[in-house]
C-alpha cells in the first residue's frame, strides 16, 4: 500500500468564510486539562461517508485530547459540507468544535472527501479541506482528516495516518511463537511480516517506513535482518561470531546501529548499508546496547551498565564524547530519541515497579508516565506526543498500550492479542 496519490486542496471553493484563527485550542501540555468536546455527525455520501466519520471519531477519541459527543444528542443533521451549521444547536449540546463532511465519487471513480472544521462558539470555519483518493484507501482518507483536525486544534502534527509494526506473541511460554506483524495505527489491516519459523523481535522502521530491521533468534544464535515490507524480501546484516541484536536505523536510513557480542561482551557497532562496512563505536567490557540515533543523526543514546547498573549514555555518532545522562534511582534501559529531538523515552525499573518515562537529552526533566509490574520498550509516534509500549501483568501475556506524553491515563492500543516491541512508522506519504 503506497502512494495513493492524495490531493490536498486548501479549499478556495470551500471557503464560505475565511479560515479563522483557532479560538479553541487543546492544550497538549497539560495532562489535567479536559478533552475537547467535538461533534462529528456522519459524513454525507452513504455508505462510506458514515464509515469515514466513524474512523475519524475513533482516532480523536483514542488520543484522549478530544471527546467526540454522542450522535444521539445531535439536534441538527448535516451531511452537506457546504452548508453553514446552525451553531446554536451545537452550542446546546456543549460542542466546542464541529466537523462536517461529505464524500462524493468524482468523474474517474475516485473518492473525494470535503470537510470543514468549525469553532461553534465563535461561529467560524477553522479549516476547509478536500482529499481525493482511490476508493479502497478510504480509511487512510479518514486518518488524514483526523490528522488535519488534530493539528488545527492542538498545534502539534497528527499521527493517525501511520502504521505500527510489532511482535505478535502466540504459542506457550514453553513453546513461544514470535512473529512480526504490521497494522494501521487504529488496528485495521493487520498482516504478518514473518512466518514464525524463527523468533522475531524488535522491529524498527526505516526513515521512509518501507523497511524494518529486526532481530531473529534460533537455538543456534541470532541474526539481524533488513526486511522490505512490500516485497517481503529480506537480507541479513551479515554474520557475526556471537549474538547480534538491538538494531535501529539512522534517521536518514543509510546506517544501522546494533549490538554484537563476543565472548560475552556486547558492544555497539554501526553498519553503513551502502558499503556494508562496520564500525565499532564502543569498546567497554560492560554491556552496551539499545542504540538510538538523534533525529539529526549526529548522536546516539544507548544503554550501558559500565557504571555498575544499567543507565543511559549519549555519545557522538562516531563513538566519541560518551557521557551519562540518567542519574535517578533505578535501572534505565531501552532509550529512544523522540523524532523532534526534544525527549528520550526509556524504561525504568525501580524496585519491583517498571515505568515508561521521558527525559531531555541532557538528562533533565525526567517524567514517569506509567507504573506497573512490567512496562517496557517505548516507541514514539511521529509527532513526538504519543508513546506506544508493551505492558504485562504478572503471569499474563504482554499487550500494547499508548500514552500521551503530557501524562494521561495509558490506553490499550487497538490490538486485542498478546504483543510487544512496538515500532511506529512515520506519517505515510
Amino acid at each position, binding site marked *: 500500500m503506497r502512494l495513493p496519490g492524495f490531493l490536498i486542496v486548501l479549499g478556495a471553493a470551500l471557503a464560505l468564510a475565511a479560515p479563522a484563527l483557532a479560538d479553541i485550542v487543546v492544550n497538549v501540555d497539560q495532562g489535567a486539562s479536559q478533552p475537547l468536546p467535538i461533534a462529528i455527525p456522519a459524513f454525507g455520501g452513504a455508505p462510506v461517508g458514515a464509515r469515514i466519520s466513524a474512523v475519524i471519531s475513533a482516532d480523536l477519541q483514542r488520543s484522549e485530547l478530544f471527546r467526540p459527543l454522542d450522535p444521539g444528542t445531535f439536534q441538527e443533521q448535516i451531511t452537506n459540507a457546504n452548508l453553514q451549521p446552525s451553531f446554536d444547536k451545537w452550542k446546546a449540546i456543549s460542542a466546542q468544535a464541529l466537523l462536517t463532511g461529505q464524500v462524493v465519487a468524482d468523474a474517474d471513480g475516485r473518492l473525494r472527501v470535503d470537510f470543514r472544521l468549525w469553532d461553534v462558539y465563535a461561529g467560524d470555519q477553522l479549516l476547509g479541506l478536500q482529499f481525493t483518493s482511490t476508493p479502497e484507501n478510504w480509511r487512510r482518507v479518514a486518518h488524514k482528516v483526523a490528522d488535519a483536525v488534530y493539528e488545527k486544534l492542538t498545534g502539534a502534527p497528527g499521527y493517525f495516518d501511520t502504521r505500527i509494526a510489532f511482535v505478535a506473541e502466540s504459542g506457550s511460554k514453553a513453546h513461544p511463537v514470535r512473529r512480526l506483524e504490521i497494522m494501521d495505527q487504529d488496528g485495521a489491516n493487520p498482516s504478518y511480516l514473518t512466518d514464525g519459523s524463527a523468533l522475531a523481535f524488535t522491529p524498527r522502521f526505516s526513515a521512509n517506513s518501507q523497511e524494518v530491521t529486526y532481530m531473529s533468534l534460533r537455538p543456534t544464535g541470532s541474526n539481524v535482518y533488513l526486511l522490505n515490507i512490500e516485497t517481503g524480501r529480506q537480507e541479513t546484516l551479515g554474520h557475526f561470531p556471537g549474538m547480534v541484536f538491538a538494531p535501529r536505523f539512522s534517521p536518514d536510513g543509510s546506517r544501522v546501529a546494533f549490538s554484537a*557480542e563476543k565472548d560475552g561482551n556486547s558492544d555497539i557497532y554501526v553498519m553503513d548499508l551502502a558499503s556494508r562496512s562496520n564500525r565499532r563505536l564502543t569498546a567497554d567490557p560492560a554491556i552496551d546496547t539499545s542504540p538510538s540515533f538523534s533525529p539529526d543523526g549526529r548522536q546516539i543514546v544507548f544503554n550501558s551498565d559500565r557504571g555498575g547498573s544499567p543507565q543511559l549514555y549519549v555519545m557522538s555518532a562516531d563513538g566519541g564524547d560518551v557521557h551519562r545522562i540518567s542519574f535517578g534511582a533505578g535501572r534505565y534501559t531501552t532509550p529512544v530519541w523522540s523524532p523532534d529531538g526534544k525527549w528520550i523515552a526509556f524504561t525504568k525499573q525501580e524496585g519491583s515497579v517498571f515505568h515508561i518515562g521521558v527525559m531531555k537529552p541532557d538528562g533533565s526533566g525526567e517524567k514517569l508516565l506509567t507504573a506497573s509490574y512490567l512496562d517496557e520498550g517505548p516507541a514514539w509516534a511521529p509527532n513526538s506526543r504519543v508513546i506506544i509500549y508493551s505492558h504485562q501483568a504478572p503471569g499474563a501475556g504482554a499487550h500494547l498500550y499508548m500514552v500521551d506524553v503530557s501524562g494521561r491515563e495509558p490506553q490499550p492500543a487497538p490490538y486485542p492479542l498478546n504483543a510487544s516491541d512496538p515500532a511506529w512508522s512515520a506519517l505515510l506519504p
Partner: protein
Amino acid sequence: MRPGGNIGLRRAARLGLLALLAAGMVACSSRPKPLGPVAPTPPPPPAPYQTSPAPGPGAVEEGQSAPVPGSVRDFVVNVGDRVYFDFDRFNLRDDARPILDAQAAWLTRYPTVRVRIEGNCDERGTREYNFALGARRAATVKAYLASRGVAASRIDTVSFGKEHPIDMGSGDEADQHNRNAHTALTEGAS
C-alpha cells in the same frame, strides 16, 4: 490491572484505608504496642529445579531405568545441566562450581560430545538488555568449562534473553529458576 501513572496513588489510598481499619481494630481491643524493626525477608535458598532435558537423542522417557552412561539423560540426571545466577549478575555462585566441575569431568570422559551453553534471564528486565546479560552468563560458563580442560572449540554459546523461561510462573521463585545457563548436548551423546 491497568497500568497508570496514578497507580502509586491508588496503592497509597488502599494502604491508607488498611491503616485506618487496623487502627479501628486496635482501638476495640487494647492499646497498641510499638513493634520492633521489621527483619528483612531472607533470600530464598538456591533451589535446585528439575527441568526436562532438551529434546533430542536420549531424552528422558517415563519409567526408564538407570541412564545409559554417556547419554543426555546421564548428563542431566547424574551431572546437572543447569546452573543458576543472582539477579542481574553473571558471576558464578558457589553452588554452580561443583556442577560445572562435574560437567567438565563428564565432557572430558566423552570427548566427542559438543555442547551449547544457553544463557537465560528472568522477566524482570527489558528484552535487549537481557540478550546481552544472557550472553554474559553463557560466556562465563564457557570460560569456566574451558578452564577445567574442555576445549573451547567444543563449546558454542547463545543467549535466549528472557525468551525461553523454564518456570512459567511469576514471582521471585520463578525468576530465580529462569536466571540460568543451560548446557545442551548438541552432538556426540547417545
